[in-house]
């Protein structure tokens, strides 16, 4: 499968008065053409920082990409100039943000907000741009798009606004769409509609999607592959099936157990005890060790290397390490 985006050992830090927050600490993943990759994790695990780093939208200062590379179309996005990056933003890689109520400029018509994106990247006439905007609004399911173009964001409901944000992001036919918690601010019925829209659009345009979320329900509906992030690292990656039915990292298991279930009678909600480590001084070993029921001495001291369980299922956990298996065998 063709890889459209490769993130290698990405480190991102923020300088604060309290010291340097190491928000992303060596994230590596690939995005294949036409797939949806979900990055899941709790608040503060670095998933949004990772996605904003790809777009180079990290406010700098205080944030900066410390090391690593982001390869897109033979270019390292961590190294390209700002004007070059502007040509990529919105045209090749676009982004959808969490809150549609604040993501649109209240004083500019939605039409103009969509059209300015087109005209920024493509040499088209005003009429062509307008037609493209109408087509796009139609594609994202906004009725009577022609008339709606002239309206302002406050004249739309939350779900409608998110559709406009999506239209805005897709209007230049980007190869990669990063959706940062796109449904979090919406109520559940609208959420389902928006997820349906994502699937529909991916089918029609073949766009690759990175979906950032903490909602495993959303992930289960749309993701092809899942990357689980914890304390600035990706701890487990696998296909949707592998992650949901064969989770190997104790954190992934913890996450799945803490999702409310309606299908199992009397199933208890099991929270993960403790809290994530302080990213001012992240632990040398596995960051989850302090909350892990299986933690061993080694977990506190050395971060586990990646263990490949199948062609696309990888986990960073000592329990899965080849040496652990040998040790177990020896002990038995």
């Amino acid at each position, binding site marked *: 499968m063709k890889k459209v985006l490769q993130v290698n050992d990405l480190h991102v830090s923020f300088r604060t008065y309290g010291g340097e927050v190491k928000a992303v600490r060596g994230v590596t993943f690939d995005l294949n053409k036409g797939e949806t990759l979900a990055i899941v994790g709790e608040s503060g695990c670095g998933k949004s920082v990772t996605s904003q780093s790809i777009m180079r*939208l990290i406010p700098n200062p205080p944030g900066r990409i410390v090391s690593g590379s982001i390869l897109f179309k033979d270019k390292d996005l961590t190294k390209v100039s700002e004007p070059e990056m502007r040509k990529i933003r*919105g045209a090749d890689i676009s982004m959808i*943000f969490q809150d549609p109520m604040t993501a649109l400029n209240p004083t*500019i018509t939605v039409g103009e907000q969509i059209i*300015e994106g087109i005209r920024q990247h493509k040499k088209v006439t005003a009429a062509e741009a307008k037609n493209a905007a109408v087509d796009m609004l139609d594609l994202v399911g906004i009725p009577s798009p022609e008339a709606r173009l002239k309206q302002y964001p406050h004249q739309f409901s939350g779900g409608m606004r998110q559709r406009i944000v999506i239209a805005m992001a897709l209007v230049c036919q980007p190869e990669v769409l990063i959706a940062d918690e796109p449904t979090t601010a919406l109520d559940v019925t609208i959420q389902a509609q928006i997820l349906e829209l994502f699937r529909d659009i991916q089918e029609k345009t073949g766009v690759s999607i990175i979906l950032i979320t903490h909602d495993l329900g959303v992930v289960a509906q749309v993701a092809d592959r899942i990357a689980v992030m914890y304390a600035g690292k990706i701890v487990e990656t696998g296909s949707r099936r592998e992650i949901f039915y064969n989770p190997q990292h104790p954190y992934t298991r913890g996450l799945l157990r803490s999702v409310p279930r309606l299908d199992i009678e009397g199933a208890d909600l099991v929270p993960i005890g403790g809290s994530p480590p302080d990213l001012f001084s992240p632990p040398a070993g596995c960051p989850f060790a302090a909350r892990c029921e299986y933690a061993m001495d080694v977990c506190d001291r050395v971060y586990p290397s990646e263990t490949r369980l199948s062609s696309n299922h990888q986990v960073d956990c000592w329990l899965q390490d080849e040496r652990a298996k040998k040790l177990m065998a020896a002990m038995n």
Partner: protein
Amino acid sequence: MNSYFVKRLISMLITLWLIITLTFFLMHAIPGSPFTSDKNTNEAVQNNLKSFYHLDEPLYVQYGAYLKSLLTLDLGPSIKQSSFTVNDLIGRGIPVSFELGFWTLLVAVVSGILLGVAAALRHNGIIDYLAMTFAVLGISVPSFVMATLLIQQFAVNWPILPVATWASPKHMILPILALATGPMAIIARLTRSSMIEVLAQDYIRTARAKGLSPVKIVFKHALRNALMPVVTLLGALAASILTGTFVIEKIFAIPGMGKYFVESINQRDYPVIMGTTVFYSVVLIIMLYLVDLAYGIIDPRIKLGKKEG
């Protein structure tokens, strides 16, 4: 919109009437009369003068007569400059004051906004600190001190500009600068703080994510949203600057409205006090109305006189 305008017009007229009434009775409550300083006239002459200007009639009769003449837009005669009517005085002073005020406003608004934007973009940077130091100075140094400094520097030490009078564009530079510094500083500070707030908004991030250039982001997406507080301030500021400024007009010997304002009160020149007050109020009320109209243009969420459905 039309019914809004009618309602608004009525409330503007009521406001104006209240101002006229209050000023009229307060003015007559000040001890003394226009003729108190004329020590050489005897009582009979004074009484003749009073009856000539109807000042011997009961106050409510004078008040009624004044309102009646106002309806015909006649502001009455000046008592102290007896060869002029108040309409003449305003007609002579206002074009000059408006000209000075207009350029002052233009300079203050344009440079204030640019300075504020620059400071906001370099928030906590060297430009920010320089701009804000400049702004604090601009606010704290009174215009007459600024005027004196400017004259000393650009007309005496380095004589490239005329000291005073109102003759050519060259003559306007110093008074405009002296008058514009304060408002510019206030506008710069306001623009800066609201710009910093706007630049942190989500829709600015959206605009960046679209690949827009910084110039487009600042001037198309941010500035419009940041201008609200500045526009609010502008109404009252414009009215006070346009109708003349006593001190600056005095220092630069500019034949504007400002001097009538102040002198008329000292001389108890009742019709001039009333006339200048009425005129200033009308300008202020119109400016405030324009500000409200501007709100609706800047922010489409504000629809004048319409309830949002």
